[in-house]
């Protein structure tokens, strides 16, 4: 594996140096990016790249493709910062939705070129990092709740959501793959998503 494709799993640093861009809320960083602040962009990247990168890798399944997509996604974020509206979602959702869309675009383009599609497998890149104390521990706990909720979904619902969200399959393709009626697939997605939303609403 070339050095350009090496990813290191790390414990994201708690961002607590007061008075610098490092400590700013995501929204503030985006607002400053909109104003052309490059330091804010650097801090924004440091904060969000480790969060969206695993998603991109999971979808495109190739680290050098993933690095390309990651770059596109953050470049779009820089350019799109002036249009960001906090009322329409958190910066996390803003970035993750964008990363997911761009990754799926990439996978679909590859599929159009006739390359075989490999369905996503679970948590390929997940390895338990050392988490310790403070914000990091809190974050891990927070992650745990949603992760548990995901694990607790009835497998057919979880499968349908994952095939769509991570695999980029449409409802029709999922129905074909699972040999289930289209209506069943839709219902599974709705029920699974409703439950996820419920958990997120209640999580701190």
């Amino acid at each position, binding site marked *: 594996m070339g050095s350009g494709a090496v990813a290191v799993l*790390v414990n994201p640093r708690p961002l607590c140096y007061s008075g610098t861009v490092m400590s700013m809320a995501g929204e503030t960083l985006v607002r400053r990016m909109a104003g052309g602040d490059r330091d804010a962009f650097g801090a924004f*990247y440091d904060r969000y790249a480790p969060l969206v990168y695993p*998603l991109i890798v999971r979808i495109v399944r190739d680290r050098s493709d993933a690095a390309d997509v990651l770059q596109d996604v953050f470049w779009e974020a820089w350019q799109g910062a002036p249009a960001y509206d906090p009322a329409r*979602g958190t910066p996390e959702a803003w970035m993750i939705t964008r990363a997911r*869309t761009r990754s799926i675009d990439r996978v679909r383009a590859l599929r159009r070129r006739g390359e075989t599609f490999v369905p996503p497998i679970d948590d390929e890149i997940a390895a338990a990092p050392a988490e310790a104390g403070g914000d990091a521990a809190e974050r891990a706990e927070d992650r745990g709740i949603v992760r548990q909720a995901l694990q607790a979904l009835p497998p057919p619902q979880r499968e349908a959501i994952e095939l769509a969200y991570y695999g980029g399959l449409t409802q029709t393709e999922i129905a074909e793959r699972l040999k289930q009626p289209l209506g069943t697939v839709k219902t599974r997605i709705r029920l699974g998503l409703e439950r*996820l939303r419920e958990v997120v609403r209640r999580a701190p």
Partner: protein
Amino acid sequence: MMGHETFDELAAVYAVGALDGDDLSRFEAHLASGCDHCSTSLRDSDEALARMVLSGTPAVPSPAVKAALLERVAADGRGRRARSRAGWVPWAAATAAAAAIAAMITGGVVASRYEAQLGHMARETAGVRQRLQESEESLRREVEVYRHAVELLRDPATRVVDLRGAGPAPEASARLIWHDKTGGQLFVANLPAAPAGKAYELWTIGSGAPQPAGTFQVDASGRGTHRVEPAASAPAKFAISLEPEGGVPAPTGPIVLASR
């Protein structure tokens, strides 16, 4: 609201990006009609899906990605480094203020550098715009040629005529897609560019004298296309000769390509 349940389901499938076919158009039309309920629901779903993603383990990508991005951002006109931590000033105002102060202090040295940079950027932008327009224009022409060829090929009465290089251009080759009623489309390859003041002219040859069928040029790679108007009478043969740029009513120059 009667029947909104269907949209709830479509909204969920849309949120995971899996809606397709009629469902997709139906839901997008519904969204476009301004359904607050559905847009709120999509927002909530996006947040929940984001949390699902965040429940995974973070991973840091190669530092090369950040380095490349910072370079791109540094080259971007909108970017600036934060000058002070005193608070956020809109960029335009900050730039204007900085330029004004700098001009006052340094007697315009810095300002003129800004101007030079702005001038440079403006030229660059104009150049890029022009290149874009040119490539758009040439793409449009190319598409027109192909469309015309395909249009012609749909008709069973269309024939494809090969022309072979002759005289001064033995390497040249050409193919003419020809229809007696609607004319044709000519594709030429390996033909040397015509000398200044000259052009290639196509001739249709029937029972009488050769009839002129338009002039054309080839590009640096020796390729050219030419749209041909229908001839007065159905031609049996075609030939191309080198002629004065404006074209002539009867061939005068050497034949460079001819059909059998």
